């Protein structure tokens, strides 16, 4: 079994799982939208989202290549998960906040993180907003209401609850959305995050990208819970399950969840059912633990192709548009990579900044040591 099936829900469950346990789907197999569930995304927004999906896929391919060429150290992509990532971000308002996991650069770009800033982060150069202090894909962008990314799995979940709880205490209407994977639902912070959000009715949307895998560990070995949505029930957190490869469904679920939160009805757990089509990251080879045949049914549900077909059917997109977009993406990418590669490393002195607001004596001393003794040769092999 690739994906868990929804088990029968028992009578008297306090928290409804959407559509009585079935997946929320809007973009149907035949390429039409379910009129009862259509969220009516504006044409301009839909095109913006589609372009971002295409660009995200383009970047995954090109950044993987850069990594293979040894030009960047690492990349963690989202092949197959573009609808879950872009659709959710599209459904938020500008005032809303995102606590990211590590796979959602497409959402950050959609929300206005400068493109060059993303590429600079991959190089950890002097222009990187994180000042070259973290590995690639750990960017930060306050202007886009995008919180700094952490590697330890799950830690952002209860932080998002606290952030949302603070919005509520301050009487503000901003909603907080937090991304995480299926593996993260086993972490301590997932449980405290949902529990606190349930108790304090924090205006937070928990977006679980259930992509079936946590590196090499499949869903079935991660949890005995029939669905991730069930875990919301335990905490009194409203839970919905959506086709995570359906841009319209993800948008619909997140927009509804954000509306509920804004109206003071508390948190929602959105389980977006999708599939990690690539390796965990550039450091991973999924051939070692999964059969390539498993990908086949998911190729039929490719989230980017589904939207492209819809747009073409509705005369909103043509093959000529594809060609023009490809050229645009290529041009932007090459320029940004060139700029990033021509930007020097951060100055050594900056290693000691931002540990505290002001530099204490011990760090001043350590900085002096570094200044005195430049490395006579390049160490580290």
């Amino acid at each position, binding site marked *: 079994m690739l994906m868990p099936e929804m088990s029968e829900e028992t009578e008297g469950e306090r928290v409804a799982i959407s559509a009585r346990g079935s997946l929320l789907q809007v973009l149907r197999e035949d390429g039409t939208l379910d009129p009862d569930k259509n969220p009516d995304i504006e044409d301009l927004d839909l095109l913006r989202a589609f372009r971002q999906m295409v660009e995200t896929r383009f970047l995954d391919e090109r950044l993987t290549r850069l990594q293979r060429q040894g030009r960047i150290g690492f990349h963690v992509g989202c092949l197959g998960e573009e609808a879950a990532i872009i659709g959710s971000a599209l459904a938020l308002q500008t005032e809303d906040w995102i606590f990211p996991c590590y796979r959602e650069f497409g959402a950050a770009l959609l929300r206005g993180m400068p493109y060059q800033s993303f590429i600079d982060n991959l190089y950890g150069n002097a222009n990187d907003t994180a000042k070259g202090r973290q590995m690639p894909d750990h960017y930060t962008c306050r202007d886009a209401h995008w919180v*700094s990314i952490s590697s330890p799995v799950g*830690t952002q979940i209860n932080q998002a609850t*606290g952030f949302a709880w603070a919005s509520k205490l301050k009487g503000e209407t901003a909603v907080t959305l937090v991304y995480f994977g299926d593996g993260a639902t086993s972490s301590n*912070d997932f449980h*405290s995050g949902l529990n606190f959000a349930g108790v304090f009715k924090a205006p937070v949307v928990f977006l679980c990208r259930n992509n079936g895998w946590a590196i090499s560990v499949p869903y079935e070995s991660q949890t005995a819970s029939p669905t991730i949505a069930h875990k919301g029930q335990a905490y009194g957190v409203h839970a919905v399950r959506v086709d995570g490869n359906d841009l319209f469904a993800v948008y619909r679920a997140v927009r509804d969840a954000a509306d509920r939160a804004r109206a003071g009805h508390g948190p929602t757990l959105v389980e977006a059912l999708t599939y990690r089509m690539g390796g965990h990251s550039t450091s991973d080879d999924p051939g070692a633990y999964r059969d390539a045949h498993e990908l086949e049914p998911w190729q039929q549900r490719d989230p980017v192709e589904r939207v492209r077909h819809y747009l073409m059917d509705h005369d909103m997109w043509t093959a000529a548009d594809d060609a023009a977009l490809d050229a645009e993406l290529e041009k932007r990418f090459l320029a940004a990579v060139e700029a990033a590669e021509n930007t020097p490393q951060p100055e050594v002195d900056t290693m000691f900044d*931002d540990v505290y607001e002001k530099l204490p004596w011990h760090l001043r001393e350590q900085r002096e040591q570094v200044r005195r003794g430049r490395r006579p040769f390049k160490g580290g092999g």
Partner: protein
Amino acid sequence: MVQALNDALRDEMKRDQRIVLLGEDIGTVGGVFRVTKGLHEEFGENRVMDTPLSEGGIIGCAIGMALNGLVPVAEIQFSDFIFPAYDQIVNELAKFRYRSGGDFVTNMVVRTPVGGGIRGGHYHSQHPEAPFIHMAGLKVVCPSNPYDAKGMLKAAIRDPDPVVFLEPKRVYRAAKGDVPDGDYIVPLEKASIVRAGKSVTVVAYGAMLYEALDAATRAEEHGVDCEVIDLRTLWPLDLETIVASVKHTGRLVVVHEAPRTCGLAAEIVTLITEKAFYYLQAAPVRVTGFDTPFPYALEMEYLPLSHRILPAVLDTVRASP
């Protein structure tokens, strides 16, 4: 000291609406040590929040609140229970400013009672400053008396960096001292010389300060004149004050109740050997808790009380190069 801390919280909460308290049992009952007594009543449940029982949840949520512009003062009921939140404290709280290149900061305080001598056994007696000092990015403080407790808690709340505020519970009720009403600050990162002397420098903090002072009084009978320093801020520590003192006395004893190996005393002794080696007339000495779990029945044997500090002081003074 409990009242002084309570005063500090009340004053600060009146001064700054962004300050919120969260922790287990801190609401109606005012915390198991009553440090937050009356605050729930006075400021309401949106400023003083009883949380579910999850230290990781408390700190994780507090970090989120701090990122959203509030100034949380989180209470961990006993420092022995802080470890479920250790990841959030050392990997998240301590690192936000650095890892985001200054894009996101977390101005908040984690308050927690520390130390033994209250018949609490292993799980109500530990004094875990070292693991927080070691993980870059935190300030760690430990006042020894009510006056400092009030002034330092105010300073910690106003400090732009995250502060782990250790409260020595053995002196929660015992330590007397005049606490003025109203606003005053005891600056962080400044030690205090509580007894001037010329024979030997004794560095201590928290509850052990009183043991060091007792040993100093007894040492007087042996003609030994101790200079006793209350460290107050454990990190970044006031090295200047210690170095100046050792240059003057030529001898150093460091006291703490946490276990010896990789403890703060090891760091202080190393720093003094680096900075004042040629002024030393005897090897520096550590008087600390042992490298055992904190024992229940034998806690008074475990703690570095004055009966263990005095011989260390006298030996140091008798030693000659």
